[in-house]
């Protein structure tokens, strides 16, 4: 069987280093298979997070030859094997060990966002009447598997470390799913501007490019939310209207 070399980050943030592992490969293998094989045969303590191995749970995010991807969906047939395949953890989050990083910040962010608040039910049995065309848009956002690759690649978080003032593409998609939910009655526009930091996004579409679920993050989620913020806070006519309202 042919072999390939995998250059995997081992250890902690300050003290770690890349190590090379040779691994036999076979037809159809993905990067995660190689990592597992290396773990079972050569490095039992190699830390890697994974679950479904089918692109549905978003656990095995990493950077493969520098590009953020799910390891379970990265086929070796699409990666050059004539030189070592570099596998390293996501760079935007603190490293725990090897390929595993501490993504708990994301879970804290979600708690701060206003939850879903439905309008009163349409029918006596507590249900609603909504047409498919009204949910199509939201369903795109709800495909998100929370792999956090969009967070990883976003320069506001990756380069500028604005974790304390910017919620990142994942949670802008989450906010869009709630704001555009046909049953939701909450208003999140003020929060988006003031605490969620939507203004920091300068729509470079890096997030859209890495999304394994192919969610059109920038065009369909972030830009419409930005428009809502602009309409609400920066529309000159509305500004005048607000003055008179007071």
């Amino acid at each position: 069987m042919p072999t390939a070399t995998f250059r995997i980050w081992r250890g902690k943030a300050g003290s770690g280093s890349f190590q090379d592992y040779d691994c036999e490969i076979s037809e159809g293998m993905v990067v995660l298979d190689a990592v597992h094989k290396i773990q079972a045969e050569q490095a039992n303590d190699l830390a890697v997070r994974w679950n479904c191995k089918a692109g549905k749970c978003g656990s095995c995010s990493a950077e493969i030859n520098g590009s953020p991807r799910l390891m379970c969906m990265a086929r070796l047939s699409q990666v050059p094997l004539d030189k070592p395949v570099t596998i390293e953890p996501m760079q935007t989050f603190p490293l725990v060990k090897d390929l595993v990083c501490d993504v708990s910040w994301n879970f804290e962010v979600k708690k701060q966002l206003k939850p879903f608040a439905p309008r009163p039910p349409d029918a006596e049995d507590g249900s609603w009447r909504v047409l498919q065309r009204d949910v199509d848009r939201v369903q795109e956002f709800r495909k998100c598997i929370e792999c956090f690759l969009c967070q990883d690649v976003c320069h506001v978080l990756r380069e500028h470390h604005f974790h304390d003032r910017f919620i990142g593409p994942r949670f802008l998609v989450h906010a869009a799913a709630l704001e555009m939910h046909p049953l939701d009655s909450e208003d999140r526009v003020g929060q988006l501007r003031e605490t969620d930091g939507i203004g920091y996004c300068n729509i470079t579409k890096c997030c859209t490019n890495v999304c394994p679920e192919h969610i059109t993050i920038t065009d369909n989620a972030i830009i419409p939310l930005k428009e809502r913020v602009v309409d609400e806070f920066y529309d000159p006519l509305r500004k005048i209207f607000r003055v008179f309202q007071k």
Partner: protein
Amino acid sequence: MIEHQPIQYDVLVIGAGGAGLRAAIEARAMGASVGLVCKSLLGKAHTVMAEGGVAAALSNVDDRDNWEVHFADTMRGGQYLNNCRMAELHAKEAPARVRELEAWGAVFDRSPDGRILQRNFGGHAYPRLAHVGDRTGLEMIRTLQDYAVHQEIDVHMECAVIELLTDGERVVGAFAFDRDRGTFKVFRTKAVVLATGGIGKAYRVTSNSWEYTGDGHALAYRAGAALIDMEFVQFHPTGMVWPPSVAGILVTEGVRGEGGVLRNSLGERFMFSDIPPAYRNQTADNEEEGWRYTQGDKDARRPPELLTRDHVARCIMREVKEGRGSPHGGVFLDIAWIKERLPAAAEHIKRKLPSMYHQFKELADIDITEEPMEVGPTTHYVMGGVRVDADSQMTNVPGLFAAGECAAGLHGANRLGGNSLSDLLVFGKRAGEYAARFAQENSAGEIPGDHTALVARTALEPFDRGVDTDSAENPFEIQQDLQKMMQDQVGIVRNEHDMQAAVEGIGRLRERAERAAVGGNREYNPGWHTALDLRNLLTYSEAIARSALARKESRGAHTRLDYPDKDEELGKLSVVIRKNPDGDLEVSWEPIPEIPEGLQRIIDARK
């Protein structure tokens, strides 16, 4: 060694898939303080993998549906070994649980009149599965997760419970370790809900991830709870078979619900050749009628591809064994053919089955709108599990509750697709409610200090053994050997000789597991985690093998070559597994709960 004082909750929920989240939400709503422990990150549990839908007799698409029909379908699918009270509660309460999800933000696909759309699935008489394309599980877990994080529930992510603590009678807490830092945690709690899911990791070809190591089954067993029906392991008929690295990944039954057909290498729709008597009246006898059924014709009967999973899996095995399989040892599942019947079929397939399209395109270079898939059976679900009271979900150990896949009773000898997601909701809620009530009525017990010290010591032994010694065993190798053995000897088709060999093999693996050695330190060390998992894997694997040996008949998901027929007497009994006072695994029988007259009438009316 144990760094902190015990963490105290009224209710501790172990597992954060659908059942665990639903239980935690309910217990919290009842006023209990709730801790929720999960081995992965929140929202990654196996519920996320569920594709087809959640079964509930909402009767949005076909008004002939109601709880009685759902109940009768569930009992027939389970070959009447089900706990009928659970089947009744499940059928009655599922619709309210699904509507509740909508109130919490779930966005189901819609019917033309704006209600929740429902689709056909194997063994369900009418279109009954509320769904979101083929990613219903993701929608469900995300809805529950997003709701739960605003309910003041303490979530302990990447934390694994390795022992339940009892005072000899009731459960008083749990012993766990943090997977990332490797430190120990002790929980002191008035009630515990087990919601740990399944056992698929004991098999080589499986749709389950590393998490499914039967923790709840093994924890409950060691704490003195009874397990029932462990011989019934569901092999889903359609898993991917090629390429090898993706073998076992699930292909949703929804493909067949949308008109997908199974063919052998001769191009024959082989499912027409063997339709079980119990289903003959409800099954189409020609291709035309089957197609009309999948397109919503209420006068048509369902195609044989939508017979129960146990039967479809056996038929696929037969085709492969008799030389009519596909090149890589499966059969063909074809949805592309519907372009003969539907305009814009490719778009229709992508819209109805988006993740299947994506999965085959990216992992196998196959465009399912153009060519057939190759599929074969994959380990999917265990019907058996911890025996619980139907109404409260409490086990025979006071204060210990179980819900979802790790509990037994609802599904009998075979589970219908879609009944798992509804099971999680209905019995997750009940377990949470009754656990909170138990916590209100009982004070916290005392943590047995000697027991926690022993558990901590034992857990660290793999580090002390030294990886370089001659006797050292690699924990991953032991696990792989177990998987191979269970697959070959306690798999889809079973016999006495193989299973006896497996029981002996498990004994040898247990000896090897005692020599499992790991290097490195306690921080996020998968070698250590795997060494700790072996104990549970071996415990329930023995329970499966010994239960399967005891049941000398073929019924539902349990197929024996040496006893190919049903035995009427055994159809009234469940195999029970318990730990005897000497610490050994003991097998016994007990009668299944008697079916009251009212429920029996419902069953008979639909036989």
